[in-house]
C-alpha cells in the first residue's frame, strides 16, 4: 500500500464515561501521534476496553471530546469515523466467504467491483492467505482468522487501527509470531495503532508508548523501557514485571542520585525523578534480575545486602531465589543461567549486590 495511508493523530480530551454511579473512565487525556503504536495496558476493569470502544464510536463518552486527524468525531457514528477495528474474537462474518468479508468495507464505500477484486487479492497476498478467498471463516485456523480480521481492518486504508486484545485467543507461539507480523505491517503502513491488552509482555515488545491504565485513568504513559525501568508509582512497578519494594528514607543526595537508608538497615544508592528532598519517605524498586547473588559476604565497592536463601524455583533459563533479610523482608532475586553452577542451596547465607543504577525510587507509602 502507498505511503499516503499514513495514520492520523488521535486525541482524547477529558474523557469520562459513567455507568450509573460508577465511572469506567474518568478525565482521561491521551494523544496518539500519527504513525505511533500506543498500547493501553491494564487489568480487567481498568477502563482500557471502554476507552477503545469510545474511540471506535460504539459507546459515547459522558464527557469530553474525541478527535481523529484534527476532526471532532465525538458525535459521529462508527461508520463515519474511518477507523479499522480488530476484535478479540475477530468478528468475521460467518455467513460470508473470506473474499466477501474483505470486500465488505469496500462495498460500503461503493468501490467498483474490479477495484474490489484487485484490492482483496492484494490484501490476501499481504497476509499470505491468497488461496483462502473462497473459504468460509469457519474453515480457517485461529491465526488465519486473525490475519483476515487484520486485513479487513486495513483494506480500506483507515485513518487508524484499533485492536482489542486481538491475540488473546491464540496460543503462545502463534501469538509471538503475530506480534511480529502486526508490528511489521504497522511499520510498513505507517499506521496509527491503539492496541488494548492485559499482557504486559505483549505491551513491552510491541509499543512505541504504553499507557498503563488503572481505575479508569492513565497511571503512566511512556516508552516500554521507561515504564519498566522508571515506573511512575508503586502500582505501575508492581503491575509490570516483578519488583522488590524496599521502603526507606532519603539521607543524602549527590548530583544525579540519592542515598537511602532502608528500613532493613542497609544504605543504598538510588535513582529518582528530580525533586525529592532529604528526609522523604520513599520506596526503592529493585527488579529481581538486577540482583546478583555473590559469595558469602558482599564484595567491596558494590551496594548490597546479605540474607538467607529460603526458596529456590528452577525455571530452566533462570532460577528465582527468595532471600530473607535480617529484618525479615523477603527479596526475590533472579539469576541467569550463567550463575547456575554456583547455585547456593536453600538455607545458606548469601550476599547480594546490584549495579549502582538498579534501584529506582517511587513515593513511599503514606498509609502504613
Amino acid at each position, binding site marked *: 500500500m502507498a505511503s499516503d495511508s499514513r495514520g492520523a493523530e488521535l486525541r482524547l480530551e477529558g474523557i469520562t464515561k459513567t455507568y450509573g454511579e460508577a465511572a469506567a473512565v474518568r478525565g482521561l487525556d491521551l494523544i496518539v501521534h500519527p504513525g505511533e503504536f500506543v498500547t493501553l495496558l491494564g487489568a480487567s476493569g481498568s477502563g482500557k476496553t471502554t476507552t477503545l470502544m469510545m474511540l*471506535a*464510536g*460504539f459507546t459515547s463518552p459522558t464527557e469530553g471530546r474525541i478527535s481523529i486527524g484534527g476532526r471532532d468525531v465525538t458525535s459521529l*457514528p*462508527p*461508520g463515519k*469515523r*474511518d*477507523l*479499522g*477495528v480488530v*476484535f478479540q*474474537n475477530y*468478528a468475521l*462474518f*460467518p*455467513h460470508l466467504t473470506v473474499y466477501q468479508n474483505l470486500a*465488505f*468495507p469496500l462495498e*460500503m*464505500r461503493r468501490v467498483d467491483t474490479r477495484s474490489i477484486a484487485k484490492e482483496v487479492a492484494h490484501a490476501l497476498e499481504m497476509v499470505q492467505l491468497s488461496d483462502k478467498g473462497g473459504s468460509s471463516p469457519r474453515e480457517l485456523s485461529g491465526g488465519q482468522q486473525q490475519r483476515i480480521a487484520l486485513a*479487513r*481492518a486495513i483494506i*480500506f486504508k483507515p485513518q487508524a487501527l484499533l485492536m482489542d486484545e486481538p491475540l488473546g485467543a491464540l496460543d503462545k507461539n502463534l501469538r509471538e509470531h503475530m506480534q511480529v507480523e502486526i508490528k511489521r505491517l504497522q511499520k510498513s503502513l505507517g499506521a496509527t495503532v491503539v492496541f488494548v491488552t492485559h499482557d504486559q509482555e505483549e505491551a513491552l515488545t510491541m509499543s512505541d508508548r504504553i499507557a498503563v491504565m488503572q481505575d479508569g485513568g492513565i497511571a503512566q504513559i511512556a516508552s516500554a523501557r521507561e515504564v519498566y525501568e522508571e515506573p511512575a508509582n508503586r502500582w505501575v512497578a508492581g503491575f509490570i514485571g516483578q519488583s522488590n519494594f524496599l521502603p526507606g528514607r532519603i539521607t543524602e543526595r549527590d548530583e544525579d542520585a540519592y542515598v537511602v537508608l532502608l528500613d532493613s538497615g542497609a544504605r543504598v544508592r538510588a535513582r529518582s525523578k528530580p525533586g525529592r528532598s532529604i528526609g522523604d519517605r520513599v520506596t526503592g524498586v529493585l527488579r529481581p534480575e538486577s540482583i546478583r547473588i555473590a559469595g558469602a559476604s558482599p564484595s567491596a565497592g558494590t551496594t548490597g545486602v546479605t540474607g538467607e536463601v529460603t526458596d529456590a524455583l528452577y525455571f530452566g533459563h533462570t532460577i528465582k531465589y527468595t532471600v530473607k533479610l535480617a529484618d525479615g523482608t523477603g527479596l526475590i532475586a533472579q539469576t541467569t543461567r550463567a550463575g547456575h553452577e554456583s547455585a547456593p542451596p536453600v538455607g545458606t547465607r548469601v550476599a547480594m549486590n546490584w549495579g549502582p543504577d538498579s534501584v529506582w525510587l517511587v513515593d513511599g507509602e503514606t498509609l502504613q
Partner: protein
Amino acid sequence: MMTSSLGTAAVVRSPRWKANPSWLLLTPALVLLGVFFIYPLCGMLLRSLVDPGLTWKHYARFMSDPSYLHVLRGTFEIAASVTAATIVLGYPLAYFLSQARPRLAGLMMILVIVPYFTSVLVRTYAWMILLGTEGVFNQLLLGSGLIGQPMKLMYTRTGVLIGMTYILLPYMVLALYSVMRGVDTNLLNAAESLGASRVRAFWRVFFPLSRPGLAAGGLLVFILSLGFFVTPALMGSEQDSMISMLIDSQVETYFDWGFASALATILLVCTLILFAIYERVVGLQRLFEAKP
C-alpha cells in the same frame, strides 16, 4: 503388518451398545414412541387401505371430489398465511427482545409465554367475544365512526387467521429469539466500523444470520397450522374448513374411520413432502443448531 493385526483386533471388539451402555438411556423414549406413536400410525395407515380387503377407495374418493381438494388447498393457504403473519409480527418483537438488556428481555419473554398458562380453548373463546358482530372490536369501530356496518369477522377466514396467528405467535418469537440472541453483537459493531450504517449492518449481517430462526419458526408454525383444530373449528366456517375439521366430521358424524384415516395419511404425507423440500433448501441441521 503391525497395523493390520491391530485393525482386526479392533473389529472383534464388543458391539457399540455393550461398550457404551449410555445407549440404554434411549430405551424409555423408544418404547414410548413405539407403543404410542409408531404402532397407532401403522394402524391408521392400514385402516385407510383395508376395507376389509386391500382397497384404494378412500383415496379415490378424496381425489374424485374437488371439494376435498379444495379443503386441502385451503388448509395450506391458511397455514402459509398464519406463518407469514407470525413472521411479520414476531420478527420485530424478537429483534427487540434480543437487543434488550437481559433482565428486560427475560421479563418480556415471560409476558410472551404467559398466555400458554391458559388453554387454547379459553383463548379462542376470548377472541370470539372480541371479534363477534356485537363484539368489542366492532363496537369500537362503530362507535368511532370508522365503519357504518359491523364487520363480519367471526366464522370467516380472517377470524381464523387472527385466532391462529395469536396462538402460534409465541412459537415464532421463541424460535427467532433463540437464534437472534446467539448473533454476536461484535459482528454488528464490526459492520458499522467497516462503514455500514445501522440499517445496512442489519440487512447485510443481522438478517442473514437470523435466517435459521426464521426457517425454524416458519416450519414449526406451518406444521402446527396444518393440523390445527380448535381455533378453526370454533371460529371458522363450514365452507372454509380445514382438513382437521374434515377428519373430525368423518369420525364424529359419519363414523367413517377409513376415510378419516386416509385424510390423516394425506395430511401426514403432505407434511413429510414439505419437510423434505425444506431439508433440501435449508437443511434440517440448521434447525437444531443453536447458533447460526
